[in-house]
């Protein structure tokens, strides 16, 4: 389990992480989301002791990372693919990592097999593609068979087959009881992989809870109705506090009322319905809405406007 308690990190005058608290529970995949520059990578660096927090603390299974001896048995991390010496082979890279934590060399071949790099194990890592680099990084994280995994953008650069592989890998590692923190900018991927979400923006916590709750709170959840009496229904539901947008002559999008309530209202007022269906926001829509105020780098067109249907 990872526990961050009121963590703040300042680089000079830049506040990278601001009074951040969250928990990454065992046995679950926790998605770590936030716009670029939100402080995700910084938080991961703080977790494994590469940077020291200005205040607050992050503990893994109750201990500071920097107090651990042979930490690879407890924590595996992929922070940056290809942060390896280009002249060394994949196998040599894992060999020195294993040696540093008293892990037997045979384990190196096991993890190379597991990530599908066994056939290129003796090739110089400098010639690896980004995807191969990611696989090598995942192999390094798995080396000590740790109960806690931190993966920063692990599917970046992977092909569809590789993305699917990572999804299954993370699910099965979590099923074995491990705590997994994974960041990604691919929202659909996180929606399919994660059980739990930690969302940050400008270094502050925006949400810490289940994926279901996070999406459920989005205002883009609505009820879609197709009816020949659109105007009558609109007046009716608006009188009951809902807001309505008309998407064509017979189609309404209703927010603020559940399907069941809309159906009862329509029946009581003898309004014919052709279609009545709940429309759930995607994780992406919910994310855009939540982080609207905390985007560090923004293009001309507001990203939320371009992708919310």
């Amino acid at each position: 389990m990872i526990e961050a308690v009121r963590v703040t990190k300042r680089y000079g005058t830049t506040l990278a992480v601001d009074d951040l608290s969250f928990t990454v529970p065992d046995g679950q995949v926790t998605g770590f989301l936030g716009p670029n520059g939100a402080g995700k990578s910084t938080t991961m660096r703080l977790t494994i002791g590469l940077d020291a927090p200005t205040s607050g603390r992050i503990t893994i299974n109750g201990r500071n990372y920097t107090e651990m001896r042979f930490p690879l048995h407890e924590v595996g991390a992929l922070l940056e693919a290809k942060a390896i010496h280009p002249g060394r082979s994949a196998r040599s890279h894992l060999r020195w990592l294993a040696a540093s934590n008293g892990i037997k060399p045979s384990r190196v071949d096991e993890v190379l097999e597991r990530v599908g790099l066994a056939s290129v194990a003796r090739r110089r890592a400098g010639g690896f593609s980004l995807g191969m680099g990611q696989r090598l990084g995942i192999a390094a994280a798995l080396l000590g068979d740790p109960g806690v995994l931190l993966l920063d953008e692990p599917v970046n650069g992977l092909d569809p087959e590789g993305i699917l592989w990572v999804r299954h890998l993370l699910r099965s590692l979590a099923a074995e009881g491990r705590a997994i923190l994974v960041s990604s900018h691919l929202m659909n991927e996180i929606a399919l992989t994660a059980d739990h979400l930690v969302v940050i923006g400008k270094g502050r916590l925006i949400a810490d809870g289940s994926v279901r709750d996070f999406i459920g709170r989005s205002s883009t959840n609505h009820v879609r109705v197709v009816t020949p009496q659109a105007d009558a229904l609109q007046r009716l539901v608006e009188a009951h506090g809902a807001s309505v947008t008309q998407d064509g002559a017979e189609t309404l999008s209703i927010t603020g009322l559940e399907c069941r309530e809309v159906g009862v209202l329509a029946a009581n007022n003898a309004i014919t319905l052709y279609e009545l269906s709940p429309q759930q926001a995607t994780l992406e829509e919910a994310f855009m809405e939540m982080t609207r105020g905390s985007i560090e780098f923004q293009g001309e067109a507001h990203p939320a406007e371009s992708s919310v249907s």
Partner: protein
Amino acid sequence: MTTVANVAAPSWFRVFLAAVRSEWLKLRTVRSTIWALLVTLVITVGLGALFSAARVSRWDRLDPRERLIFDPAGFSLNGLFLAQLAIGVLGVLVMSSEYATGQIRATFGATPQRRTVLAAKVVVYAVVVLVVGLVACFAAFTVGQAIFSTKHAQAALSDPGVLRAVLGGAVYLSLLGAIAIGLGAILRRTAGAIATLVGFLLILPILVSFLPDPWNDDISKYLPSEAGAAIFHVRPRMATVSPGAGLALLCAYAAASLLIGATLLSARDA
């Protein structure tokens, strides 16, 4: 998956030994190591032989006084002046290449005890350089003396101070390697650390020599390169410290470089 509560925390010494094994694997699995060590060997022996042959060719024209103070052992080791650069550059790279490639994060992630990592790097590199240096210095000495023997000017290992000078050449390289690792840890950038090293070894002595008497000699004998020369020469040249003092000076330089490096490594974000 390891159940944490059942694993006894390894002792500091086990962490250090594991780091030494790890650093040894790192050092021998990159090509630059092989190249730098090979260059050290070739330059020490080859350049030493070249200088020695040049001296022999002018031997008959030398002033008798010059022949009298001639130091055949020290002279055969003159290739060290260039070879020291290869050892210094590789020493800097032992630390700075980790920062350049980002691998330092994997290193400190695996061993959060950063001073232990530095100690392991120094031990591994100093021992490797000492071994290579011994081979190079004994070979250069042997080749040099064979050349001087044509003029019956050779030294023997059993002559006073000769064995000390030959061993001293290897010890000098080894300590220089430690200084370079410290510089790499302090500056983290390859270019800056190499420039600093070259400045200390080659440029500072030249600048100091332009100072007015007697400051030039008083200062220059305390510079690392002159302290080293005191160790691997039999007859002290003008204005050098004694071999013992030279060794002590070099150890002090290495200690200073490594202590500053260790302090900064612990204090800074990786």
